[in-house]
Structures are given as C-alpha cells and as structure tokens.
C-alpha cells in the first residue's frame, strides 16, 4: 500500500523533478561563456538596476547613462581622483583672465576620436554652441552654459570661453564634448538616442545597448591616457539588489555598488570577494521648514511658527545624539557631518571646530526656556497656550527614515518637544515639502565636486514660488550674509580665499540651522578580487569606485593575475546546499506527513 502511495507521490512531483533534472543536465557553469571570453579578452560585468532614458549626452538626465557617458566622452576639464580638483581632460592647460570672464583652454595635440578622426577645438566649440543656441540640446546640461557669452576656437588647439559674469568655478567641467563630424550629420541631434555606432573620446565607447538587459562598453584604444586594461565592461540588469549580491557570489557579475549594510556584512566573509566602504558625495539631513517664503517674501505653507525661532532650531539640534543615531541607523556606515558639503570634498567641507555643537539636551532645554517655551504638565512645552508639537515626514519605504523617527521621538520628548512622525510615500512628501506643508522631513543630495551649485540653491534667489515653480531651493533658506559670501566665492579666483568664503558661508548656514545635517552615508560596494584588481577610488583616500565624478574607477582596473577559480574552503559544501535545496522544494511534503494523525486509509 505504502509503496503504491509513494509511487503515486513520485509521479505527482514528476514535473518538478523533471525541471530539476533539466537543470542538472544543463549545468555547465552559468558563467561559462564569460570565462571562455576571458581567456583572450577580459570582460568585467557590473550589476545595475538603473533606468536609461537614452545615451545622448545633450538630453540624457538619468543617473546610469550619465555615469556611462563619463566613460564615453572626455570633458574639457576632468575632476581628478585624488581630491576632485580640476585636472586635464581634452584641455592640457587653461588660463583665466584677471576679471574671471575669459577662460582660454589649450587642447592637447594628437588626440583622436574612437573612429580615428582628430579631436580639435572645433568639436568643443560645436558642443557648447549647440547647448547655448538650442534649448532642446541644453535639456540635460543647459544650466552649465547659462553664463556663457561666446565660445570661439582661436586656432585648432585653443578654445576661448567668454562669460557673461565672472566665475571662479572652472566652466570646462561636467560637459561631455561630442565629435562635430558625427553630430552635425544627425538630422535631429536632440532626438537621437545615441546607442549605436557611438564615437567617443573617453576610455570606453558604447558598443551596444539592450534595454533592461545589458549595456556593453568596449575599450577605446585612442583614449589619450592610454587604452584601459579591461577590454569590455558589461552592465547586466539585476532589478533586485539581493539578486545582485547572489550574482556576485556566483561570479555572474564582478562588481556591485549601493549595497545595504546587511548585504555588505554578508559579503565580507565570502570567498574571492572584496568590499569597499567609500565616502560618498551625499549628505543626509533633517530638512527644517523655518518659514517658507517666495522670493518676493510672501509666506506660504503650514510650517510651525516655533521653527522660525533660531533658538528652537538650535535646541532641536542639541537634542539629537548624532553619534548614537549614526551608529544605530547606519550601523556606522556613515561619516560624521558638519554642513551640507560632504567630507569627501575635503577642501570645501566645513571642518570641525568648536562652533560645531554636539549633543547637549540640557543646553537644549535652556534654549527653549529662553525662547519662552515652558514645560507643561505633560512634559511638553507650551507658549501662549500652544504646544510645541512638530511634524516629521518620513518615507514609509525607507527603513532608515523610519528608524530615524523612532530614535528622535523620545529624544525630542526629553527636551519637551512633541514629535509627530508622519509616514507616507516619497511622492506625497515631495508634494508636501514643495507646498511648505511640513515642519521637518528627511532629505539628502549628491553634491558636485565644486560646491558652487549646492551653495547656489541655498541663496534667497533660488527659492521657488508657492507652486514649486521656478528655481530649486535646498531648504528654502534665505540669509543676506550667506548670499554675500556666496557671491564672493563665486568670483574669487584665488582658491585659498575662495575656500575661506565657502567655509564662512557653510558656517553661516550651520549657525542658522537651516537644516540639521545628520551624516554623510558611505557607499558600500563589492567586487570579485579573483577576477579584477586595481580599482581607483575617488577620492583616492577612502572614496568610491562606482558613481564617480570621473572615469577613474574602472579605468585602472585590470584582470587579476592568477584567477583562482577554486571554491576554496569555508562555508557549506555544495552537497549541503543541494540538501537544503531539495529540503526547500520538497520540505513542505514533510509537514503533512508529520501532521498526519492516523495511518492512511488508502482506498486504491
């Protein structure tokens, strides 16, 4: 009887078993094709989930294609890997007139596009002129040439940029220069997706693009710094980040970035995998609504009156135990923060000083007392019969934001502030913050190597109107002192003086508590050390490999000398994993067996 049942049972699971058998019979290692290719050619595979609009450097605004175009097109001026300072790109040198309005660039001689045509000053002029004259061609980077008056090629190797207003930040950065002989032939250059037959000047050229499947880059032998050592870079699409981790373990990909602390920890002991904890370009902050106003000074929104008082904002910052918060929420994968320029930009970052406060709840209480908020019977402070109650908007989909809320609530209670955490989705938060309908929310930005843009969005003039139209503002901040310092640094050509002005501006922003910068999150990455070595981080000291402001990360990478294909010791043996696999697929079968109370009354 039992054998009959078992036979039926075996037959019943036949389909599953068959599939499993097929799986086994097809089991050449999944990465066989890549391994074969690596015998003569090296291919580095990078996991990505990034959306792509197109690869047109004039119009593409998504992160992934922008990052890839950094490898495909050289800029006039690059950011270096050591400390993000401006360094040679297509230009080998440049000069600035004393008034900061004339910038003259000398283009290196003998450089060639990937199709062997020479790179000349005309290509640079063509690129900039397109962006200046045709709004559609300025869709992605138009704001970078807004201050350009004229761009001329004074000879084959010299480009002169005349600015409308003087500026200290180098105008030659960030803009990919395209080959005129290719782009001037296109019927609709702004509408071109630029994903086939791409001609570039960077270390790699775009070979092919399969939407949601792969992006393939080939080394450009004509790159002026010399061809990179890895022949092919292939971005493979992995929508799910846990799947990316598994792909790295299995060797299906060689590099992953943007890992969570848990994922990084899980990979730290893995064979042939090395991790990189890099200081990123981001800051995370508590955005404060200290009274939203239009540039015309018209107030809007529902921000709490209390937050307009500097003492209250100062008290909030003193009431937060930053170190504990960082260690608990970010598991210490974050750097201590001062203001909104992250420490990876060492030059511009506001250094720690005695003007940077640390947690002090007693001082916080004193400040609130001074501001006239006295403790009520329930421990919550009151003023004119109004409770000191503040709303904190958090994104329900971001676990870190939820945790921040959980930590802040008791700390705020301790200093007599009633914190109401309102969880919703990022779109609602975006709408509410635009309308000024908030007290605090958790925000963050990726800052560019030159702090100019980030400073500019903290000036009075950058505030949008009540509908959110017009410019962008980081925190709706407006300070005359800050604006003056911003204007000074904007035109100060002496860098050490400019650094001083930037620090003063950041300190002003800090003192005014326009936001409470919580930390600079680390970017967590991992790569297959058995396949590739020699990645360059930016900044060199403790920086990141992926998402750089430059092409250094993979440029210096090379295949590992002795690829160790062995599985090595440690961890469970494959047989154990087969066991677990079978247990999972068939595991449920055991459950009913165990639950069965009486012998089967098999009727067959």
């Amino acid at each position: 009887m039992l054998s009959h049942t078992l036979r039926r049972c075996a037959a019943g699971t036949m389909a599953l078993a068959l599939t499993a058998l097929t799986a086994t019979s097809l089991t050449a290692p999944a990465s066989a094709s890549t391994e074969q290719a690596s015998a003569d050619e090296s291919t580095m595979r990078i996991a990505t989930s990034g959306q792509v609009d197109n690869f047109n450097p004039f119009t593409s605004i998504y992160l992934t294609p922008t990052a890839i175009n950094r490898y495909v097109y050289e800029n006039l001026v690059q950011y270096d890997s050591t400390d993000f300072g401006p360094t040679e790109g297509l230009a080998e040198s440049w000069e600035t007139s004393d008034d900061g309005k004339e910038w003259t660039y000398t283009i290196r001689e003998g450089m060639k596009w990937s199709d062997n045509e020479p790179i000349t000053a005309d290509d640079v002029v063509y690129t900039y002129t397109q962006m200046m004259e045709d709004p559609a061609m300025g869709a992605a980077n138009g704001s970078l040439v807004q201050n350009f008056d004229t761009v001329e090629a004074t000879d084959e190797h010299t480009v002169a940029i005349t600015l409308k207003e003087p500026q200290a930040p180098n105008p030659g950065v960030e803009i990919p220069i395209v080959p005129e002989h290719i782009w001037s032939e296109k019927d609709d250059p702004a509408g071109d997706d630029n994903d086939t037959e791409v001609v570039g000047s960077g270390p790699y050229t775009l070979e092919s693009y399969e939407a949601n499947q792969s992006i393939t880059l080939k080394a450009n032998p004509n790159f002026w710094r010399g061809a990179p050592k890895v022949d092919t870079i292939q971005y493979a699409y992995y929508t799910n980040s846990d799947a990316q981790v598994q792909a790295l373990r299995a060797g299906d990909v060689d590099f992953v970035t943007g890992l969570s602390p848990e994922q990084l920890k899980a990979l730290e002991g893995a064979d042939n995998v090395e991790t990189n904890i890099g200081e990123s370009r981001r800051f995370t902050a508590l955005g404060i609504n200290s009274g939203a106003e239009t540039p015309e000074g018209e107030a809007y929104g529902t921000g709490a009156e209390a937050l307009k008082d500097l003492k209250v904002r100062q008290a909030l910052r003193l009431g937060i135990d930053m170190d504990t918060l960082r260690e608990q929420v970010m598991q210490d994968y974050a750097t201590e923060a001062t203001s909104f320029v992250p420490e990876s930009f060492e030059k511009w970052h506001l250094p720690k000083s005695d003007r940077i406060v640390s947690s002090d709840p007693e001082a916080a209480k004193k400040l609130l007392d001074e501001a006239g908020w006295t403790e009520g019977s329930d421990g919550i402070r009151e003023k004119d019969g109004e409770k000191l109650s503040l709303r904190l908007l958090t994104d329900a989909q971001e676990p870190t934001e939820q945790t921040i809320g959980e930590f802040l609530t008791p700390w705020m209670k301790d200093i007599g502030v009633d914190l109401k955490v309102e969880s919703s989705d990022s779109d609602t938060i975006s709408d509410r913050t635009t309308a000024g309908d908030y007290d605090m929310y958790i925000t963050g930005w990726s800052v560019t190597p030159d702090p100019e843009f980030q400073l500019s969005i903290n000036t009075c003039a950058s505030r949008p109107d009540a509908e959110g139209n017009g410019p962008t503002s980081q925190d709706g901040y407006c300070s005359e002192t800050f604006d003056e310092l911003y204007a000074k640094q904007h035109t100060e050509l002496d860098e050490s003086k400019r650094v001083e002005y930037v620090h003063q501006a950041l300190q002003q922003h800090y003192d005014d508590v326009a936001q409470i910068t919580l930390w600079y999150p680390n970017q967590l990455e991992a790569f297959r050390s058995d396949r590739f070595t020699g990645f360059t981080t930016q900044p060199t000291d403790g920086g990141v490999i992926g998402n750089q402001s430059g092409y250094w990360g993979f440029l210096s990478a090379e295949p590992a000398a002795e690829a160790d294909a062995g599985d090595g010791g440690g961890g469970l043996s494959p047989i154990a994993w087969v066991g677990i696999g079978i247990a999972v697929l068939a595991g449920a079968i055991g459950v009913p067996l165990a639950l069965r109370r009486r012998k089967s009354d098999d009727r067959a």
Partner: protein
Amino acid sequence: MSVNAETEAADPQSADGREDIDAPPPGQSFGGYLLRKVGGALISLLMVVLLGFFAFRILPGDPVQKIARERQMSPEQMELLRAEYGLDKPLVVQFWDYLVGIFTGNLGTSYVYREPVSQLIAEYAWPTLLLTGSAAILAIGLGLWMGQLAAWKRGSLFDKLTTSTSLVFWSVPTFWLALLLLMIFAGRLQWLPTGGMVSPGVESGSLEHVVDVAKHLILPVITMTAVVYAQYLMVMRASLLGEMSADYLTTARAKGLREDDVRLKHAVPNALLPTVTLVFMHIGGLITGAVTVETVFSWPGLGKLTYEAISGPDLPLLQGTFVVFSSAIIIMNLLADLIYRQLDPRVRRA
C-alpha cells in the same frame, strides 16, 4: 490596478469555479445573454479608459520634478521637459489627446524610453508570455492532474500530501520563495544563472541561445508554478468529489470498466468544467506578468516595465499598460462567460 497574476487568482479554498459565473436567468435567449455580457464588458472597458487617465494623475508627485530631482536643472530646462511631455497643456486637452490616441491605437510615447507605448508593450510582451505561459501550462497540468488523483483517493496519504504541499506553496510569499531558490540554485550551487533572460553575448537564434534562455527560465517558472498550481488542484479536487457519487459512474463500473477508465473517461471530463473559468482568468492574467517574479529574477518583461513606470512615474507607459492589462482580463472574462455557457448544457438550459 492589478498587475499580478498571483493576486488575480481565486482563493483555492472556496474554489468552485462556478461561483464566478453569473448563471443566466432561466429561459433567457442566447442573444440577450450575449448582449448583456458584451454590454457589461464594454462598460468595464470604458471605466478602464477613464480610470487609466485620471487614476495616475490624482496620485501625488510631479514627473518632471521627480526626474530632475538632485540634478542641476534650471527652470527653463524643467519647462522644456514639461512641454516635451505635454504636461504644460491644460488637463482637458491632455485628456482629449489621450482619448483620441486610444481610439486610434496610439497609447502615447513613453517619457523614459521615448518610444511609442504600444510598441514597448508589444516588445516586452514576448518575454512575459514565455515566462507566464510556461508557468501556466505547468501549473494547470500539474494542478489538474494532481487534483483529480487527490479527489479519487480522497483521505489517502497521497491526497493529504499533495493537497497540503500545494497549500503550503500557495501560502508562501512569492518574493521569499523566489529569493530562496535564487540563493540556493544560482548563488550557492551555481547551477543556474542569477537573473535576466539571456546571457550577454549569446548569438540570438542559435541553439545555444535556446538552451541559455531555457536555463534562465527554470527558476522563475518553478516559482510561478509552485505558488499558483494549488488553485487548479483544489478546484479540480472539489469538482471531481462532486461527481464521485454520480449514478453514471456506478453505471460505468457496472459495465466492468477499469477504475482508471471510469475516472479518466467519465468522471474527469465532467469535473473539468469549473476549471474553464479559472483557466480563462489565468490566460487574461498572463500578459500582466508577475511583477514579483520578474523583479527578483530581473526578467525583462511587462511586469518589470510597469514596475519601473510607477517609479518614474512614466505616465503614458503607466496608462498604456493599465489599459492593455485591464482590457485583456475583461475580454478573457467575457470569453469565459460565453464559452462556459456553450460547454455546459445545464447552464444553457437551466
């Protein structure tokens, strides 16, 4: 909006497919029945078209601001984007354009892909149909076959085993099962690829290509099959149990037929009827794919396309997929209603 085949399916516990069919009132003519059903479907389609436009516009979030977030963008650049997307026009005009578009087969142009939405849907439908189709065939076959066996031997070890196994898989979160299989068979054992549909660099159309796609297909298909076959099993089992006491089976046995013949030639064909609805509902859901499975296994299909459109938000793409998916389900339900009536004389003559 329902884009998930798993959630689309009926609860297997209460599963008697007949409940999903509105039995026509006795004596109603086929013409009247047809008119009523088709009319109902048309009204549903109209609602879908209206909802497709307004539902995504009521949602908070400005696509342009979202795309431009954390990017150095001047107000002029933002205006340009808004104009390119047609978002600068009054809502009424946008709605009119959308309506005219739908009735001329033009679903608009995706913000992100800059391609016609209908073309995108057509492109991404194939990988999805390959995945969901394979899983559906397996789930239907496995479920029906095990269901009829389980009913025939109800109360046996086999019955308990298959029924509870299927229910355990039904209850397991798809996401969890998918990740677990991925971790074991792709991450650790490395028998199968960790994601995608085809390894980069494999020449398309070659035998290697077919084998490669098949390897990529195994884990997602197992996951999808495992989590849905229970409903077929349960409906089939319940339906066959209903037939088992029928007189015609006694007759068949009296004629001296073997037990297998009684079951397969007499009982099962009659018991199959309620599963028809289920199958049609499933077919309607095929195109909507399986967001979860496609996401975990990075399958480049419609589920993933929709998932990314939501995070965009790529309004034309969202509208387009919503209208197409919903229409597929409505049409399949209509077909199920009509075919069921033809298949089962009792419904027709009741």
